[in-house]
């Protein structure tokens, strides 16, 4: 069964999950679980909370797979959106968060990580695209996405008008979309580390 699943698209796996096929959910986890966990760790900075966020997000995939509409977006985007939303909800409910400084969005040092070549290429490609954004746009994206700060929190903490924060987010995300929409053309795939 798993051999067959390996040849299916992400979207086909979601359709199978909607028919209560557990092996399809397991295959989706095998494809995106590691990225999901990495994202949750980055936002939550706590392995236990991260595990919980990933688990709840994949169970949401399981429960709501029948409502996924492939025409509206990719399955991977949907799954990672669920993971991100869960992690952000958790971080916002954490009391200690109120005193957190903005540098919580900074990349924590992680040592000795083994990862497969595809994930490494993906990471380098997105990191390279981020580096090409104007500093203010990159900062807004990183603080919002990895830090879990809302736009109004960012306006307050960065001492900028809300309108400025909104346009930085929009500008940054739109540019990121352009840069990543053209794989291999503009973005360097060589590692800079």
């Amino acid at each position, binding site marked *: 069964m798993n051999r067959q699943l390996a040849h299916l698209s992400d979207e086909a796996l979601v359709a199978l999950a909607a028919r*209560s096929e*557990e092996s399809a*959910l*397991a295959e989706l*986890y095998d494809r995106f*679980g*590691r*990225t999901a*966990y*990495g*994202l949750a*760790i*980055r936002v939550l900075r706590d392995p236990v909370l991260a*595990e919980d966020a*990933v*688990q709840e997000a*994949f*169970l949401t995939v*399981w*429960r709501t797979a*029948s409502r996924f509409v492939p025409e*509206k*977006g*990719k399955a991977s*985007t949907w799954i*990672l*959106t669920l*993971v*991100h*939303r869960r992690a*952000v909800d958790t971080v916002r409910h954490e009391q200690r968060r109120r005193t957190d400084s903005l540098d919580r969005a900074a*990349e924590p040092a*992680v040592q000795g*990580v*083994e*990862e497969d070549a595809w994930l490494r290429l*993906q*990471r380098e*490609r*997105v*990191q390279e*695209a*981020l580096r090409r954004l104007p500093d203010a746009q990159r900062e807004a994206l990183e603080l*919002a*996405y*990895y830090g*879990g*700060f*809302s*736009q*109004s929190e*960012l306006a307050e903490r960065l001492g900028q008008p809300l309108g400025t924060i*909104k346009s930085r*987010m*929009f500008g*940054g*995300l*739109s540019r*990121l*979309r352009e840069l990543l929409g053209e794989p291999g053309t503009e973005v360097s795939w060589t590692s800079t580390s």
Partner: protein
Amino acid sequence: MDLHELTAAYALDALDADEAEAYELHLGQCEECREELAGLNEAAGHLAFATVAPAPPPRLRAAIVERAAAERSNVVPLLRRRWVARGLGVAAAAAACVVVGLSVALSQSSHTRYVGIGVVLGANGQATLTVYGLAAAPHGKTYEAWVIPAGHSPRPAGLFSGNTTVRLHVAVPKNAVVAVTVERAGGVRAPTTAPIISART
């Protein structure tokens, strides 16, 4: 607040709860925002791939698959519930009265599951019972239906092992309660456990 401007922040989950709610309502009416959001969502999704982290512990995968499997046996898909409702609707056209009971029960894994019964009353108090949302009865147990006329003790009205539509063995008068309990296989003459669901006619 111009809701169009919130698309990027929504894609980044950077809206407060009330803003997100307002934006979602707006999305339902704005084709332009839906299209823009699809693109920006995808861009935001890329950001997930820029993180570095150790591999998750193997127990995480096991826990997800195990909980998913547990839910499958407990949760009846919405589709089937609609189907049951439609079935009841057809039956109701020829019947005097339909009553429906719905209970929300917590399963062991603490997920909500819905158990519902529908009772279709025909002529002379004849009635059929439709049950949905039930897991199969545990080994050595059965579900037992009861008809409890106002001011009387419960009358055994039939046995079944899971989701089903059955004709009740006894007539159902007005103002009676139809209930379901879990009993030992073979059934009992009087209920020994609290009803898991009931409906009043």
